[in-house]
């Protein structure tokens, strides 16, 4: 049973459940303890030992059911191709031919579990669990069948058919009948092996494909992402935002090594006659990041805007003190929309409210100063997401300067590559002098790096 369990662990890993060697040892010990007799007990015990979060419990359930579902062939009479052939009276006449082809005999015996076992053994021999890509299904199905002796079976069928043609009336009818039933069995086997391989693919390889796709998305330019990637993208971005948030929301203080906090030490040790039993060190407090995000959703960045908003949405989910604004020609506070809607409604709502209009950075900055600038203090980091293309209107550099002076840092993330900055109506070079950081940010990967840097700067200070 060693091998199936190891395979099961591989399937679990493919389903994103971490199974370390130590955990697999635990699982083996668990299995030794509970045995295989009681399926429910077996499953519950393994689940307790391996799945570590509610999400993992759910994937464990799916994975377990899929992995241990194969035992019996689904052999019920659902008609058509899938019907398993049955043995009949006249078969003894062909005993000799059948004897040479164990597969044919097995088919006629109609023992589902025996066939399942044989299929699985063959699958193991040809290494079907190593399947990597969806396109390999046919190949592996065929190899399994070859290993089971499909060729012999096909030969036998052909031979029986020929025999039926040559021979006289009585025997020929039986042979044709048998050939017919074997042919049915062959199709049934094809079907089963294909399904088996597909299951292997689902178990072991699908996650690889998914991971590959996600990796690809991380590096694709936001403006060229497509609608159908949106859900997947949301998952990636959310995971990323969450990772960043947990990393940086936790440590509020850390000890300055070696610097004695004399005042607190004396005080704490008063009960001990002032003898410093307990020594206290100075701490550095690290504030929670306070972030203002201003997001351009105008026509010029329309393609990227959805993803910028997506990121804004995810950030809002994980960072407590986030103020979010969006603008094209006017600027509005979108914090409420992000807070109270799920992502599928929030983003279109923002786009409908303010998106797709012509850009006016000057007006947007003016709006910001008028209504929201008071919230800004020296602990706040301002992130501006936009291309800095202002349709030749007044860029209001003066406001930008005040923004720069009042805040802790101004960070400008521009979806355009740096070589385009300053061409046409781009005001980027002028804005840039009042940014602490101005960077190209066209993929999710960029975004992650930049945000990571921002949060790190909070940790250091």
């Amino acid at each position, binding site marked *: 049973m060693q091998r199936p369990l190891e395979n099961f662990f591989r399937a679990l890993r493919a389903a994103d459940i*971490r199974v*370390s060697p*130590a*955990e697999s040892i*635990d699982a083996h*010990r*668990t299995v030794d*303890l*509970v045995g295989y007799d009681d399926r*429910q*007990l077996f499953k*519950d*015990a393994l*689940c*307790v*030992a391996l*799945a*570590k*979060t*509610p999400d*993992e*419990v759910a994937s464990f359930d799916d994975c377990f059911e899929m992995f241990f579902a194969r035992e019996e062939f689904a052999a019920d009479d659902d008609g058509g191709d899938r019907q398993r052939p049955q043995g009949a009276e006249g078969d003894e006449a062909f005993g000799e031919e059948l004897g040479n082809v164990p597969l044919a005999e097995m088919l006629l015996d109609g023992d589902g579990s025996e066939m399942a076992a044989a299929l699985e053994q063959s699958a193991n021999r040809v290494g079907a669990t190593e399947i990597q890509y969806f396109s390999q299904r046919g190949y592996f199905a065929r190899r399994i069948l070859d290993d089971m002796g499909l060729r012999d079976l096909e030969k036998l069928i052909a031979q029986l058919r020929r025999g039926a043609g040559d021979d006289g009336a009585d025997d020929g009818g039986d042979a044709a009948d048998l050939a017919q039933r074997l042919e049915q069995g062959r199709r049934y086997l094809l079907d089963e092996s294909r399904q088996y391989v597909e299951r292997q693919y689902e178990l072991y390889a699908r996650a690889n494909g998914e991971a590959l796709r996600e990796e690809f998305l991380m590096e694709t330019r936001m403006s060229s992402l497509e609608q159908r990637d949106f859900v997947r993208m949301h998952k990636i971005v959310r995971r990323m935002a969450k990772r960043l948030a*947990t990393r940086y929301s*936790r*440590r509020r203080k850390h000890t300055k090594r070696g610097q004695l906090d004399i005042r607190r030490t004396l005080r704490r040790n008063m*009960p*001990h*006659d002032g*003898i410093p*039993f307990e020594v206290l060190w100075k701490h550095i407090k690290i504030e929670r990041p306070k972030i203002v995000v201003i997001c351009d959703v105008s026509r010029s960045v329309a393609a990227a805007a959805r993803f910028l908003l997506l990121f804004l949405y995810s950030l809002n989910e994980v960072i407590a003190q986030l103020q979010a604004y969006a603008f094209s020609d006017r600027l509005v506070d979108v914090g409420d929309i992000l807070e109270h809607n799920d992502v599928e409604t929030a983003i279109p709502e923002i786009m409908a409210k303010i998106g797709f209009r012509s850009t006016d950075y000057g007006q947007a900055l003016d709006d910001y100063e008028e209504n929201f600038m008071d919230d800004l203090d020296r602990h706040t980091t301002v992130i501006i997401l936009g291309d800095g293309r202002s349709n030749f209107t007044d860029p209001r550099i003066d406001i930008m300067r005040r923004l720069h002076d009042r805040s802790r840092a101004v960070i400008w993330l521009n979806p355009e590559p740096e070589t385009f900055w300053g061409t046409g109506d781009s005001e980027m070079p002028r804005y840039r002098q009042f940014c602490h950081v101005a960077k190209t940010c066209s993929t999710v990967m960029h975004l992650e790096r930049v945000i990571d840097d921002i949060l790190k700067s909070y940790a250091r200070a």
Partner: protein
Amino acid sequence: MQVYGKSVTAVIEKRAMTEPRAKKISNVDEIIAGLGDVGYITSRQIATAIFVAENLTKPILVEGSAGVGKTELALSTAAWLDLPLIRMQCYEGLDESKALYEWKYGKQLLYTQILKDKMGDVLGDAPGLDAAMAKLQGFGDLFFSEDFLEPRPLLSALRQEHGAVLLIDEIDKSDEEFEAFLLEILSAFQVTIPEIGTIKSTVPPIVFLTSNNMREMGDALKRRCLHLYIPLPDARLEEQIVAARVPDIEAKLRRKLVAFVQLLREQDLKKLPSISETLDWARVLLLLHADDLAPDMIRDTLNVLLKFEQDIHAVRPQIAEMTRKARQAGERGHATTA
């Protein structure tokens, strides 16, 4: 040791115990029956988790929303196995001097005072400084010894001769460093005190850690624990639980109220009512001498089940309809939501 601020609630119930914990749990049904005897109705999953934990001597990390009986599970296990329960409530800022051990500073101070007085007698006739030091070496170093050790919950759990149930409650509220420092205890059931050495438990305690998922636990901790997620119960199980905990309530009403709560859980609410709320509600209904579910009465007592104003507000218009359904389900014989 009140002086030093004993801020950890260490509830140590001493029971008269004569024999070591000889009974090894041999199967899952035994656990279900045993916990049932002390009034804790479990599902098979929960019992399996305890079974595996006990036999592999691993701690269990119990997760689930508030009020599904995570803490209660530890309490009941202790009651059933007749073991002392040692409970440690975690919070931000909890550190080892509050969780593991602390030196009895006052006593140590006293000891040095006495030592100073007696020093003359002990060293009395030693001719020089070297001789005096040599003589002093002869005495055992009492200053850092177990006599001066004040055990906190974790250490006292390890020191129980006949085993114990250790409940580390709401581990997610503690700091990350604290989690790291638990690792030695959870994997080897021992602690290392630099001045003394390693203290290892003779009979490893049964350890429950509970978490409300305030923050994600570290992988190292998760790896050392079995993971048990307690979901909200289905109607059948919940009925059994109510029957066990509020035995006075009449069977028909019990079915109806459970059906009502189950209906409530299908709503889109901020905080779904969990088992403890169901039990509270059952007690309230008992107190009000209710013999049937009536919309008015439900409206008045809804705040027992729902803890947020907006939830109450959202449910209120549907009460009549839900009551009708719940009563039907109750009349039919078993509380299913279908």
